[in-house]
């Protein structure tokens, strides 16, 4: 009997065949089953469901984002180890995996690191910190926040299912056609890539709207825009970029999937299509995307430096001006990613000059941080050490970036290891170090105890050292002519440099291990590291005015803001303890499972589209619309915390 109407194009040939993937394909489901069994054994299902899965509390959603991001960092990191191990041994005649697997591994590495590590950690930290910094009770749309997270989760699940059945895309993290077109990639790999990005991308767009509205409408009374912390400004600019750039990604991926599903000709080489248009469109999203990631990291550093230098941030107004300049300029540089595609000198010169100009606001920020440190009373805690490592690494990355902004030079190093070293320089040394600083900085606010400081510093040094070992050889290799994404090469003089690079990845892995062990040690010693007064760093902004861990209602009494660094000056001028009459009734959103159901429906629709199971697509989409409608007509979404209850809760939390 023909079952293809039921299982789509699935067949035995899509099951894993080589030993490495079979290992992963068996290990991963076993691991998941073990975790589920443990939850059942310890009877934690109702706790998990009520406290986490259905939550609409931004801080908890933030923690879940961070958890997924760290898990995916481990998976993406394992991919990186595999890639560098292969290139280290290649000339010795050893082939760890075949070329096709190698291509899938670097595609998975890039896609996972950008979409599920960097984006996940960014939204995680914003969720944790932003409402507290603004003096807000929650984000503007708590339910939408839950939908965003679960769509992100569904995308993550889809990208990981590809490990078990069907294989992943081999087209690189941006999947240029015609390689990712139907002609050269008829299997489900590219579809996995498209739908994982598409579903999590819609989640990102919803988050962008959510945080923008939060910043514009939910600031504490008295906090004008120019009194906001720099972190809030950086998030505002980043989220504006999300709102403008992500529709471009969605449309581009939709056109690529129409090429693949409906045999259309947007990006094919024949039938009137043009693959170069895909490259143009994906980078019209892709360049703003790198600023979307780096700006919140800049914001985190601004908060960290002001706190640990015990000074207000130097040049607040120029900081904001630099952010706004980047908001505009990041949309007029995208063509620098494809100088070599054949545009004329005028086009290349325009985008090259624009790229050099965008380095100016970024430089302004770096100088502002250095001047903030100048004559500051600096404490070198773990977040500060992450900043020092960042300043070193990011400056090198920025300078090589400006080098490549010169089209004539770019023609020499385009798509070589030089480029690979450059963007890792700014993404690891910029984005990731920023988010790590944020984790060490805000951890006590979320969990009520600090992370062990020395292990955090050691991790930072290991990351920086490993980074230098892993990527400085790649700069040299790039200049020697090593193209990116090679799994083998014939020049034996390259091998020592590739071996150094592989050792560097190993050192970075040690850094990750140090962080994980440090976190476990801190949990063990949480009584000694406890944050008793809610202000462990002698902070400046409003999040340190509430007890740690921050209560689910954030602020028992809405703070009144009169100036920048409000909490710092409140502490100086003496804080009046709140009177019982200061408390008023507040309304809080009820937990809801609708976000999870929407994401399940979206994920099933995605799986149906990947495997051409059309009945599943239809059922899932109808279900999705039904859940959305049901939620829309549900008016019972809030509950009231009376002044009396709030007073008692606040007394208990402050003790």
């Amino acid at each position, binding site marked *: 009997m023909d079952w293809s109407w039921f299982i789509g194009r699935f067949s035995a040939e899509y099951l894993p065949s080589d030993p490495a993937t079979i290992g992963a394909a068996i290990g991963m489901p076993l691991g998941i089953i073990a975790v589920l069994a443990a939850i059942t054994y310890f009877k934690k299902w109702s706790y998990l469901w009520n406290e986490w899965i259905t939550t609409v509390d931004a801080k908890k959603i933030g923690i879940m984002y961070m958890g997924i991001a760290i898990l995916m960092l481990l998976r993406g990191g394992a991919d990186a180890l595999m890639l560098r191990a292969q290139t280290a041994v290649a000339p010795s005649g050893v082939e760890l995996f075949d070329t096709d697997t190698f291509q899938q591994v670097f595609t998975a590495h890039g896609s996972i690191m950008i979409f599920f590590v960097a984006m996940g950690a960014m939204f995680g930290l914003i969720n944790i910190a932003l409402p507290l910094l603004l003096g807000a009770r929650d984000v503007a749309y708590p339910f939408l926040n839950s939908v965003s997270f679960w769509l992100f989760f569904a995308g993550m699940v889809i990208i990981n299912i590809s490990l078990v059945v069907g294989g992943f895309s081999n087209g690189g993290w941006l999947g240029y056609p015609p390689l990712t077109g139907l002609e050269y990639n008829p299997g489900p790999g590219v579809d996995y890539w498209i739908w994982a990005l598409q579903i999590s991308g819609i989640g990102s767009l919803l988050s962008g709207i959510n945080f923008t509205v939060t910043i514009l409408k939910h600031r504490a009374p008295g906090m004008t825009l120019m009194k906001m912390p720099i972190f809030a400004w950086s998030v505002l600019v980043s989220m*504006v970029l999300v709102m*403008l750039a992500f529709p471009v990604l969605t449309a581009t991926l939709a056109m690529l999937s129409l090429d693949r599903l409906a045999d259309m000709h947007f990006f094919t080489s024949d039938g009137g299509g043009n693959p170069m248009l895909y490259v143009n469109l994906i980078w019209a999203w892709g360049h703003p995307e790198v600023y979307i990631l780096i700006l919140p990291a800049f914001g985190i550093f601004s908060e960290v430096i002001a706190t640990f230098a015990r000074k207000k941030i130097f040049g607040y107004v120029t900081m904001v001006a630099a952010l706004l300049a980047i908001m505009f300029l990041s949309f007029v540089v995208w063509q620098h990613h494809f100088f070599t*595609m054949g545009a004329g000198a005028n086009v290349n010169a325009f985008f090259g000059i624009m790229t050099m100009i965008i380095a100016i606001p970024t430089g302004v920020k770096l100088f502002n941080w250095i001047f903030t440190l100048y004559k500051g009373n600096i404490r070198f805690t773990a977040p500060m050490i992450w900043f020092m490592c960042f300043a070193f690494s990011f400056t090198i990355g920025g300078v090589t970036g400006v080098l490549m902004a010169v089209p004539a030079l770019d023609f020499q190093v385009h798509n070589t290891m030089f480029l690979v070293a450059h963007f890792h320089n700014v993404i690891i040394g910029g984005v990731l170090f920023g988010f790590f600083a944020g984790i060490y900085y805000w951890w006590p606010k979320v969990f009520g105890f600090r992370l062990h400081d020395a292990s955090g510093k050691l991790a930072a040094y290991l990351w920086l050292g490993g980074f230098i070992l892993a990527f400085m050889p790649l700069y040299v290799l790039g200049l020697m002519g090593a193209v990116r994404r090679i799994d083998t090469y014939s020049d034996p003089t390259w091998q020592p440099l590739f071996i150094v690079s592989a050792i560097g990845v190993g050192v970075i892995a040690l850094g990750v291990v140090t962080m994980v062990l440090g976190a476990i040690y801190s949990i063990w010693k949480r009584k000694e590291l406890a944050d008793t007064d809610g202000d462990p760093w002698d902070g400046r902004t409003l999040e340190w005015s509430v007890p740690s861990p921050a209560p689910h209602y954030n602020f028992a009494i809405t703070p009144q803001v009169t100036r920048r660094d409000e909490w710092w000056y409140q502490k100086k001028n003496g804080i009046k303890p709140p009177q019982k009459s200061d408390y008023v009734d507040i309304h809080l959103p009820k937990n809801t499972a609708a976000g999870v159901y929407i994401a399940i429906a979206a994920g099933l629709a995605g799986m149906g589209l990947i495997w051409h199971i059309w009945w599943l697509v239809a059922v899932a989409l109808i279900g999705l619309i039904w859940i959305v409608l049901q939620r829309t007509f549900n008016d019972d979404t809030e509950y009231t915390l009376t002044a009396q209850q709030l007073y008692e809760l606040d007394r208990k939390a402050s003790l």
Partner: protein
Amino acid sequence: MTKHTSNAALRREKTHYIIGFTGAATLTVLAYASVTAQWFSATQTAAFVLVLAVLQLFVQSYYFLHLGDEPKPRWKSWSYLYSMVMMIIVVMGSLWVMYNLNYRMGMTGPQMEAHMLEQNKKGF
């Protein structure tokens, strides 16, 4: 908020919508008529319809989206303006890049050779 809106404000809003609707409808009818009745030549018609489209954009933004008619801070107007600017940059920029690429892709082998020779004479 609507509860406290006074009668005068309501009447003003009503007039506002009626003007907006009449304006939008007139512009649409004009565009339709200019094409069906063939008032002008083809190029002129295209230009005329484009001008009407731009007017339509302003009428709808002002009378229906209430842009420029909101109390400060004018988030709606600013975000609208900024999105328009960005959209124009991305669309015009893409067109510029793609036409440039296509122009150079469109050469035949001999044409390319002649072009390269020409470039060589310039010294690079």
